[in-house]
């Protein structure tokens, strides 16, 4: 569910641009002394902090939350947030803070793997389309058009019905649905690069096409792909949690954010914390990934 491209209008590299001037003057600056750090600093700093916590939680969850996220304690079920349970407890008395922290690994892993898959697929399609002949380009273009014409959730639902719910299915489903959008961006990127002076000259110098691909094209495409990946991970996390919400993702009691949210919504009226904290974590993750992706993108443009 990512309009990654929506934030892609200022991708680095020789992109065919929309209307308006080709050179982006960067954030609008008024003359005068800088009095406070603008949005260009605060948001990325916040995002970077969030990202650090998330990575820490994913790598060494035990440091942040020593409580076992799976340990049940029916006597303490539905406790509201307190000093002993920062985020409260769920219907089986499991500590929600611990579950949110331990949920970072599966949730981010699903997001990252899905993004990697989507981008990988897109890279193949996009490069083949951008660099291949007219027919290949047309063929892949049609394929991508068809994939875009199907609502993403439909694609995911059909795929899950096909392969059965689960982590790997979720990854593939999300990867598949995000691939066509990425493919379009990469294609236009490759197109623009192909026409660039650098590649022209390499070709004139008689370099082998493979060498051109690996020496010039891929390294130049890498930057935008990284930006895409950063922007995409957060949205992939949302996608995956939506599938969990519909009961098609990771099976409980595994601490996965979407599954926790799905479990919590039943108790919305009586235990708001069960929905609130995992939801907030997903929002924070997606927002951090957007902010970081965009500041990476600005840096690449040199604004």
């Amino acid at each position, binding site marked *: 569910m990512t309009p990654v491209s929506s934030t892609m209008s200022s991708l680095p590299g020789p992109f065919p641009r929309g209307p308006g001037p080709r050179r982006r003057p960067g954030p609008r600056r008024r003359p005068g002394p800088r009095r406070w750090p603008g949005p260009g600093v605060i948001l990325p700093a916040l995002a970077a902090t969030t990202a650090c916590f998330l990575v820490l939680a994913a790598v060494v969850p035990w440091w942040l939350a020593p409580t076992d996220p*799976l*340990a*049940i304690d*029916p*006597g303490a*079920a*539905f406790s509201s947030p307190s000093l002993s349970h920062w985020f409260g407890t769920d*219907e*089986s*008395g499991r500590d929600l803070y611990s579950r949110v922290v331990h949920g970072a690994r599966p949730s981010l892993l699903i997001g990252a793997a899905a993004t990697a898959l989507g981008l990988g697929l897109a890279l193949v399609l996009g490069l083949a389309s951008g660099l291949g002949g007219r027919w290949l380009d047309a063929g892949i273009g049609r394929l991508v058009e068809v994939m875009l014409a199907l609502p993403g959730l439909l694609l995911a639902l059909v795929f899950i019905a096909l392969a*059965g*719910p689960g982590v790997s299915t979720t990854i593939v489903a999300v990867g598949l649905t995000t691939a066509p959008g990425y493919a379009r961006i990469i294609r236009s990127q490759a197109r623009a690069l192909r026409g660039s002076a650098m590649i022209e000259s390499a070709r004139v110098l008689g370099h082998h096409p493979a060498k051109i691909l690996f020496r010039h094209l891929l390294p130049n495409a890498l930057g935008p792909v990284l930006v895409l990946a950063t922007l995409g991970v957060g949205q992939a996390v949302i996608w995956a949690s939506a599938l969990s919400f519909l*009961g098609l993702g990771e*099976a*409980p*009691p595994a601490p996965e954010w979407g599954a926790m949210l799905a*479990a919590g*919504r*039943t*108790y*919305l*009226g*009586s*235990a708001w914390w069960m929905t609130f904290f995992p939801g907030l974590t997903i929002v924070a993750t997606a927002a951090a990934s957007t902010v970081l992706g965009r500041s990476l993108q600005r840096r690449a443009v040199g604004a």
Partner: protein
Amino acid sequence: MPVVPRPARPASLAASLLASLLVLTGCAGSGGPGGSASDDTPVEGGTLVYASGDAEPTCLDPHVGGNYPQALLAGQYLETLYTKDEEGKIVPWLASGAEASEDGLTWTLTLREGIEFTDGTALDAATVKANIEHLQDPDTASSTGYLAVAKIKSMDVVDDSTLTLNLSAPDSALLESFSMPWVAIESAQALERSQADNCAAPVGTGPFTVSKWTKQDSVELTRNEDYTVPVDGADHAGPAHLEAITWKFIPEAATRYAALQSGTVDMIDNAQPDTIKAAEDAEDIDHLDAPRPGASNRIELNSSKAPFDDAKVREAFIRAVDVQDGLSSLFFDTAERSYSALSSVEPMGYSDESAFERDPEQANRLLDEAGWTDRDSQGYRTQDGKRLSLTFPVSTNQSVPAEQSLFQQFQATAKEVGFEVKLDLLDLSSWYDVLGENHYDLVSAPYTKVGPDVLSILFHSSNTVPAPSGYFANHAQVKDKKLDALLEEASATTDADERQAKYTEAQKIVLEGHYLLPLYDQQNHFLYSTDLHDVGAMTAVASPTFHDAWLAK
């Protein structure tokens, strides 16, 4: 299909009554309307907005398929030959009586006279015959109703109000079957329409008729102005007080409860335990608890393959898991623990608490005896390098969230003695596929049926053989000749005491064989606005009917 003078009222009408009512197996209660006693004069007119959390039926004719959501709706516009009274006794409704021959192979069914369907046709013997033939027609694709009338071999219309039924084998459950909405009687003329037409608006004799069905939103039911209660002696025999019912489908539990709170709807079903608890404190919401008949909600242990082919391992599992703690915290004490294969509303149910006492030490001992002596690095028991692992497919359509959470807790407590339980949440299609392929060790499947004959469906060895569609009901895969014989004898006898004795014996075999872990009755909780009065009339399968109900507003 309530019974006069007062319909069965398995209701906890006030929160404070709840505990005692549960003990009284939900068949208590009587008389007065729920909530306010200030003004008991029914108000005529008004539209009841009812929100169901059950899946929207794909067909409103409960003959087709035959599940609980269909029964819930059909109770408003269709009526049955028999029904259940307050004491749980099966009593005539559209029928006036039935008599079996000495050998139990021939039944003579008599019908009440002067009853008309809403399309103007009259109820007669030929109509009943057409209905049973409709159920038996493969094209109807009836499953529940089909099984209920399976033993009827042929029928002879004697006169307008007399029908003879010839059975292939004696069937002590026949009248119980006739009380179920899945065997409700529809207009023969209407049944001749295409299935699509009949599914969209079945025609019956009930207090309401189907006037409009907006898919995925609601079914509009309008009052049958010509309705009269078929049984004599009703204090309210004429048309319903309510002018109409809007029957909405709101699958999300939280949304459904919010709709009741905000006054968008007047009554909801499938109320979740936490909202029942919350409603106790709400002044404008009342609670109705109506356990379904048939089987209790239970976990069945698949005895057809390792590790549960060993009775010791089955017992070890039953002794290992902690039911009580989860039950009280997850269900907020709204569900009473069951120790029986049958629902607490079944008079022939047999309970044995001792068979299900938690005892982890004994579980460990049993597993040691069964040869599961080693433990792997994660603490699970192993035998010859194989882990003691159990597959537990859970249907998200059939298990409410609290139940799914309970299963997760079983997973945790079973681990303590070395069981690995793998929970798989599946949609209904995939769930049936997994069962059909015998890829399960544990399973929980509800089964609603009136009467103890449900035991034959669940435990007779013939029901381990899947239908062509892959469906079978004996999920524990019990194959016990002695049990089969008992079930057959119980089904054949017409003597109530003998029947009870046989079914009790059969239940003992099942419980002592450790084939199942009973949890609680099939939960059937309703919450409704205090503006809605005289709620509580029920069909034989504990679905509410609204002939008596009225709205004060």
